[in-house]
């Protein structure tokens, strides 16, 4: 799998109302990579994701998956949103099964895969519960299971833990990292949390706003054997501090 975003710009509207949101975005993602996109609010991160997902089309430039241009949404790109992503009238298991059923998979396969992916996210016992009966962290794990169950080539995560409490967020970050290690999934993570990006991704792109563009790319060569240790290690903290400052400066000079 190879995802390529090259020279992508996006302008919403036209004439005097035109809003230039993205300028010359370039990024690459290979099978098994975990890449993050960091930027302050309004820098166009979600727009990048919506373009990759095919929910919007670029104004110029191209997005390809395995050389094929993206023309619209498809199940090869799974998505996890910040909130409202589970259907509240379906149980956790039904939510996971929802997409597979519509893909027309046989019932037995749907059931097996549902059980399997609920187990992958550690929620085997919660299958029959409704989303409102699950904590925010559990809901996002169901959303991840649902996205994975459709067998995507790449998982697109738009601030998946943004609505969670700090403590649960840390647990979920570790969960996601282990999931990535275990299943070898390919992920594009969008976040405004520098720590989250550095912790999880091998490559972090930093976006500046107005118009949104990538201004810096960091290849984080860090020892990720123990994330809670890494969080507190000196090189990590240094890098985190430097990037957080960098973002602040970007924001104040651009804003």
């Amino acid at each position, binding site marked *: 799998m190879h995802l390529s975003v090259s020279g992508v710009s996006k302008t919403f509207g036209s004439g005097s109302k035109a809003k230039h949101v993205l300028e010359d975005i370039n990024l690459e993602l290979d099978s098994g990579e975990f890449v993050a996109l960091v930027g302050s609010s309004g820098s166009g991160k979600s727009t990048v994701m919506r373009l990759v*997902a095919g*929910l919007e089309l670029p104004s110029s430039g191209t997005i390809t998956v395995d050389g094929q241009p993206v023309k*619209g*949404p*498809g*199940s090869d*790109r*799974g*998505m996890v*949103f910040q*909130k*409202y*992503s589970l*259907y*509240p*009238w379906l149980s956790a298991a039904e939510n996971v099964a*929802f*997409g597979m059923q*519509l*893909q027309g998979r046989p019932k037995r396969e749907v059931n097996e895969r549902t059980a399997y992916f609920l187990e992958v996210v550690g929620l085997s016992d919660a299958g029959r519960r*409704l*989303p*409102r009966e699950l904590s925010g962290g559990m809901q996002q794990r169901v959303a991840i299971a649902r996205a994975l169950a*459709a067998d995507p080539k790449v998982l697109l995560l738009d601030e998946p833990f943004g609505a969670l409490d700090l403590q649960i967020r840390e647990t979920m970050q570790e969960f996601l990292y282990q999931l990535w290690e275990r299943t070898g999934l390919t992920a594009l993570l969008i976040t405004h949390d520098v720590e989250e990006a550095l912790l999880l991704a091998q490559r972090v792109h930093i976006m500046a706003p107005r118009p949104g563009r990538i201004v810096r790319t960091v290849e984080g060569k860090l020892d990720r054997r123990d994330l809670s240790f890494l969080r507190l290690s000196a090189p990590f903290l240094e890098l985190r501090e430097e990037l957080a400052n960098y973002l602040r400066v970007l924001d104040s000079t651009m804003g």
Partner: protein
Amino acid sequence: MITASAPRRAAGQTRGRPSRPPAPTWLSSPLARQIKAPVICIGLTLLVWQVVCSLSGSAFPGPIQVVTQTWTPYISKPFYDDGGTAKGMGWQILISLQRVAIGYSLAAVVGIAAGMALGLNGFIRKGFDPMIQVLRTVPPLAWLPISLLLFQQADLAAIFVIFITAVWPIVINTAVGIQEIPQDYTNVARVLRLSKRAYIREIVIPSTVPYVFTGLRIAIGLAWLAIVAAEMLKADGGIGYFIWDAYNAGGDSSTSQIILAIVYVGIVGLILDRLIAYIGSRLNTGAH
């Protein structure tokens, strides 16, 4: 009951105060506690009403007269039938309910369909919105003359008035419900490449149910309001007709009959409201 009172007694004991002898159990039962306040307040209201009527010496009946004057046949035999329009109040209410059922069901079907069209299509929404905003404020009875002219028949006219009164809140709430579907529900659907039909069946309908029931609940109240009023103006049979007939008869017990009918109207209205709310909560999908 025991679990509810146990902690309090325990707290009392730790402070070393002697615990009071327990009240009779029926008085401290949850049901008794719940109905205590209403029973006292309603009782007081009835008492004041009775006292004012007795002291002023007016012909207006107090609650006791209302009951004694209407006991036979209106309370004791709600389903007597002397032929024609001389029927028990149970029948009269059923006649009204039947009209409401027809008009309201039509309003529900048409209202939900129209609301969906409005919610799903921006052109239709923008086009019809001004008209809906004007028509929905027309009072129910203003529709009656035109409805009589249109249908030439009191029964159909009353049903139409119910329909036209009840349909607006259903249309509006359904349309709003569809517009309020969170963008991410739709995005997930698009990633799965749902067909338009599957999108409506799997996403639009379940996530709009709570809104539709809000509309249905407002509508049932308006429908009940409208039927009583419409029957007072022109109808044979129905609880509204009964009230107006009693007023015109002007007999000794007329006022008592009217008051009794009002109580029935209120109770039936409440039951209808609760019924729709109950169905809605059973179907509640937890959306939004």
